[in-house]
C-alpha cells in the first residue's frame, strides 16, 4: 500500500519535495498556524493542511488513507489536553492516535512518519518549530 506508491507518485511530482498531510483542529492549531503566518515566521511549504472541527473528528483511517495515497508523513495537531473546544475530543483522539502510531511498524510504515502534537491558537512559534522539525525528520527518513 505504502512505500511503493510513495516512490511511484514521487516520480511524477516535483522530485525534491516531501509531501506531508496535516490535520489541524479548527479551534487551536489551525488558528495557531494562522498566527505563525501573520507573525511572518518562515515555514517549509511541504504541508497540505486539512482543517477538521476537532482532533476527535480524526478517524485513524484518515491517516492510513493519506499514507496509501502517497503522503511521506502525516501530522495531526489539536488543542492541548483540557483546552478542547468540545471539552473532551482530544482525549479520545490521543488514545486512538497513540494506538495507531504503535501499530504502524507492524504493517511496514516507519512510525516516525506520523506525529501528533498539541498547539494552541497563540503558539505560532511552537507551530513553526513543530513543522520545521517534522519536515526535517521526514526528509532524513527519505534519505534527502
Amino acid at each position: 500500500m505504502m512505500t511503493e506508491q510513495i516512490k511511484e507518485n514521487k516520480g511524477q511530482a516535483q522530485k525534491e519535495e516531501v509531501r506531508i498531510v496535516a490535520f489541524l483542529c479548527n479551534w487551536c492549531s489551525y488558528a495557531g498556524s494562522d498566527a505563525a503566518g501573520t507573525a511572518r515566521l518562515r515555514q517549509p511549504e511541504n504541508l497540505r493542511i486539512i482543517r477538521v472541527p476537532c482532533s476527535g473528528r480524526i478517524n485513524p483511517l484518515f491517516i492510513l488513507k493519506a499514507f496509501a495515497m502517497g503522503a511521506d508523513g502525516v501530522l495531526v495537531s489539536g488543542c492541548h489536553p483540557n483546552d478542547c473546544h468540545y471539552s473532551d475530543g482530544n482525549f479520545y483522539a490521543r488514545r486512538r492516535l497513540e494506538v495507531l502510531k504503535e501499530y504502524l511498524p507492524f504493517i511496514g510504515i516507519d512510525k516516525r512518519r506520523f506525529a501528533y502534537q498539541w498547539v494552541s491558537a497563540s503558539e505560532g512559534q511552537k507551530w513553526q518549530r513543530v513543522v520545521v522539525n517534522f519536515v526535517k525528520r521526514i526528509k532524513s527518513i527519505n534519505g534527502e
Partner: protein
Amino acid sequence: MSKDILNQKLTNEVSSIFDQVDVVVGYCGSNNPLMVNPCFIEEKEGLDQLIFNQLCINNLASYAYKLSKRIKGNIAMVVKPCDSKAIAQLISEGLIERDKFKLLAVQCPGVLDHKKITKALKGARVFSLNIGADKIEVETATGTQELTKDEFYADKCYWCKIYNKPPLHDIFIENDQKFSLEPRDRFEDIQDLEKMSLDEIFSYWQQEFERCIRCYACRNICPLEVCQDQCIVHLDYPNWQSQKVDADENKFFQMIRVMHLAGRCVECGECERVCPQNIGLLKLMKKMNQIIGDIFDYEAGMDIEAKPPLLTYKTLEKNIKEEEL
C-alpha cells in the same frame, strides 16, 4: 462413551430451560465427518440433534447480534468458554442485552481444526472420524490413518487459559474429557514478524494480500462487526475503498477491520478460519490487542463492566508518552 454423557447432560440442561427461550443455538452433526453445523432449534423434538464434541470450532456468538434483533424472546446459546468472551464483549458495548441470552458454557477440551486435518491427509476424502484421548482415527479412501491429536487443535487453543472458566455463563456444563494442552505464549506467532525490518514486514503483508479476493467472509463471520449493512467499504461517498482488488486495496480493507476492532477483538479466530485464501488475519488483530493491552491494560471480553478503552479516556494517561517535536 464420555461423549454421550456430555451430550446427554447438554440436552438435559437445554430442555430444562427450553420453556424460557424462543430458540436454541447449538451444534448438530453434518454430512462431512470433519465438521459440525450450527443449528437453530425452535421445537422441543429437535433437541435430540444437539451435540458437542471436539469438532465444534465455530463461534456461535457470530449469530448473537442479528438474532437478538430478530427474535423477541430469549435465546439459549451453547458456547465454548472462548466464545462467551465475544458475547461478554457485545454486552459490555451495549450491543445486545444480557437478559436476552441464556448461555450454556461447556467445559472445553480444545477443538480440532479441520483445515489442518485435511492438509495432513493431503485432501483425501474422509469417510469417518474417531476422536480418541490422544489420537484421531481417520478412515479415508486410501485406508485408516492415525493422527496425533496434539498437532491438530485450532490455533487459539494453544494459548487458551479459560477452557474451564468462561467469563460469562448461566449454566456451566462439566466435561470429563480434559483439556490436555500446555498454555503457550499468546503472542508467540507475531514475534517472528516483529523481528523483521520495515521493508521485510511490508513485503510480507504485500504477499499475503496479493492472494486476498476480498470476499468479505472475514467481516461477515466476525461476531463483533455488527454494522455490516452500513459498512464503509460499500459507501460511494465518501469513497474509502475502490472496487479494485489488489494488494493495496485489500490491505486497506484489513486496516479498516483492525481499526474497527481495536480493543474489541476477542481473538476467536473465525476470520482466519473462514478465509478461503488462508491469510493470517489473526496476526493483525493480535498485534493490535497487544498494544491495547500494553497501553490500557485491557483484554476484550473478560469483564462486562469494563469499558472498551477507545470508548472512554482519562485526563492523565499513565502509559502514553507524548513526543515533543
